């Protein structure tokens, strides 16, 4: 057995003396040849809101991902929990696949589940997300519900560095519906906007950043009419306190 190996070895040595071919070379199986697989969890908003009508809300807006530069699986979640009523005004969960389409933008596709107090909806989601010129973070999505209604959402955010640790962020979320879905109180046209101004301080790296801020919510058109009919408000101002989390 050993003799056999030895002769094989001699043969190999004899061959190698005259030629080294790329095919003889070791293939990189160290893992370096595999795309980096990474994960991350982030809550852009995790806050307590107190409105000018003495309404109290617990609110979050977060996401988590796993994947490579080329393909990521991302969960996005939004929730507004009315503390007194013990009910979710908003509860959204999205699961999307995300892939780069240009230097600064990614495309996403997936599903969104809305399960607040009241009727549920499931949507198909198609969107782009990325960094626009002048440092605007943009997230634009198109939704088609299981009821056949279509809507679109645009989120934009801008950060102003007062210092390298004290950061003022301005966020604008707008929703437009292309058809009416009265059951969930959505009218055709501009549905609602949420504008927020938050002043945060990076306490521990960028992992924990407490903030205070103000948020303005407004409903428009038919949506506002539906809200009024329900006895709800169409415009609210909130004082918010919370923390941004990234890990």
């Amino acid at each position, binding site marked *: 057995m*050993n003799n056999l*190996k*030895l002769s*094989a*070895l001699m043969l*190999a*040595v004899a*061959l*190698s*003396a*005259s*030629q*080294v*071919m*790329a095919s*003889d*070379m*070791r*293939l*990189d*199986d*160290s*893992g*370096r*040849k*595999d*795309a*980096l697989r*990474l*994960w*991350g969890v*982030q809550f852009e908003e995790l806050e307590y809101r107190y409105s000018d009508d003495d309404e109290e809300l617990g609110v979050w807006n977060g996401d988590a991902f796993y994947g490579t*530069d080329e393909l990521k699986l991302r969960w996005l979640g939004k929730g507004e929990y009315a503390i007194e009523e013990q009910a979710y005004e908003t509860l959204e969960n999205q699961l999307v696949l995300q892939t*780069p*389409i*240009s*230097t*600064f*933008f990614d495309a996403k596709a997936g599903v969104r589940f809305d399960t607040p107090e009241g009727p549920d909806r499931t949507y198909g989601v198609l969107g782009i997300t*990325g*960094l*626009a*010129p*002048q*440092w605007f973070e943009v997230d634009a999505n198109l939704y088609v519900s299981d009821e056949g209604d279509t809507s679109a959402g645009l989120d934009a955010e801008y950060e*102003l*560095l*007062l*210092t*390298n*640790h004290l950061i003022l962020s301005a966020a604008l979320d707008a929703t437009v519906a292309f058809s009416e879905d009265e059951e969930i109180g959505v009218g055709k046209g501009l549905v609602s906007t949420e504008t927020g101004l938050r002043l945060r301080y990076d306490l521990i*790296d*960028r992992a924990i950043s407490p903030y205070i801020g103000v948020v303005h919510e407004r409903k428009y058109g038919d949506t506002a009419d539906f809200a009024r009919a329900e006895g709800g408000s169409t415009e609210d101002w909130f004082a918010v306190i919370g923390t941004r989390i*990234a890990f």
Partner: protein
Amino acid sequence: MTRSLMAGVLGLLMPALALAGEYNISVDRVIIDTGDFVKEGIGYNGSSPGPVLRFKEGEEVTINVTNNLDETTSIHWHGLILPFDQDGVPGISFAGIPAGETFTYTFPVVQSGTYWFHSHSGFQEPNGAYGSIVIEPKGREPFRYDREYVVQLTDKHPHDAGRIMRNLKMMPDYYNRKQQTVGDFFSDVSEHGFMTALSDRMAWGDMRMMKADVEDVQGFTGLINGKGPDQNWTGLFEPGERIRLRFINSSAMAYFDVRIPGLQMTVVQADGNNVQPVNVDEFRIGVAETYDVIVRPRTDEAFTIFAESMGRSGYARATLAPREGMEGPVPELRDAPLLTMADMGGMHGMDHGSMGMGEDGMSGMDHGDMDMGGDSMSGMDHGVMPEQEEPAMAGMDHSNMAGMDHGSMMMSGNGAEDPFYAKGSGLVPTAASGGKFLSYADLKAQKPLYEDREPTREIELRLTGNMERYSWSINGIKYEDADAIKLQYGERVRFKFVNETMMTHPMHLHGMWSILDTGAGKWNPVKHTISVQPGTTVYMETEVDAPGQWAFHCHLSYHAASGMFRKVIVEGGPEQGNTAGVEQERVGGDV
């Protein structure tokens, strides 16, 4: 069995060697205390940094490396010329050293000078797995000194390196706390006027680039020989003595500007190769580079070795003193440099031709025209839209850049010049003393290692990346998607590095020397790591004299890990020599 037999056969064939040394290294989990924080890391023989390995030129070394970790490890002998299967890159040179096992490296030492070694597995090196190598020459040194010290620098970060990579991928500016603030904007307004300040901000914002993007990973403590600034590593001397300081930058990411206030330094070696001595007040040491200097303190006082990081976010400090416990004054950190448009010159997706810089400053710039659907920096992203981009680029006139009137723009560098930085670059270093700052242009080989000859061909390597995604690549392709670079044994290849990013990249070719083209012909210095500054093109030549396969990469840990890496295959080779190692490895693997 086969292996030992093989070794035996080889042993018989080899001439009897006068020198042979055996060394043992264990790879261990260690505690690293920087004075600012304590963390767990990886080290050698129980400490980080590991030992100083002292070899002698001509020695046949045997190094037994025992892996006490619970993961695969490896040791790469940075800058050493050796058979490729001893080079220590898992997946390229060998399979790596599995947990709990011992691997024996054997190779002849064919050179002298200052080098270092480090793990080439995962993020073990930034986590502490590095040490130094000092090789005494066969003959006399072409310089004299009374004593010598290794001065090994690193940028020790409180975070684990894997976490740093993840954070950078999540938020590329995660560690950048030198960004331009509202306050900076208003001071720009008062200095340059509102419109100039605004258009400057707009120009950078349009590119989605930060001029403060000089140091990606901040928040580290600079260490010298494992000691933080407060722990103050001290080297003793007698006044009047000549001291040789062997500077090694083992940082993951940080370049250092090094000076010893009160002492002139004479640079005598770079990357292990002797250079014609140059007197300097300060020098910049790139990641993975080494510089040997001779200093001569004549007075009975302490001198501070002060190494500021290039982005001024941290520093390392040590002391040369006649007696233990003495301290010299520690200077303040200088202001952080800012990138200028000149540093962006390499990003050819930007249509500089349309930026009417000549007459009316920035006002002629039409950003609307520049926007290519969120892809105006398309030079960085050829992989995505190759068809549309290339023809447009071909007609672009870069010569306009040269005529650009940087004077009419803000922050157009500090007026200092260095041929290895873009003209008007904000990164050009100047000496704190006002004196001489070492440039690559000052480096001349003491004795040419190779005959000067025409290169047989040129290979262009564009250094590319996308800061927002923190992905780095060569020619727009990450290592995971790239084919190997094939070289033929015996050729002399001219590599053309074109830095299209705004970061500095220390490019390191394993196994063969990098002859940096400084325009000095046969006196061009011979290095193992070559820094390529933003917006510049740098040439190096390599005599392809080492068969096998080798790594070739940016030595910034997180750039290499995110794709700025290549395998080089040297095809062909001499009749006898290292090639046997390939088969040995292969056959050995089947046993």
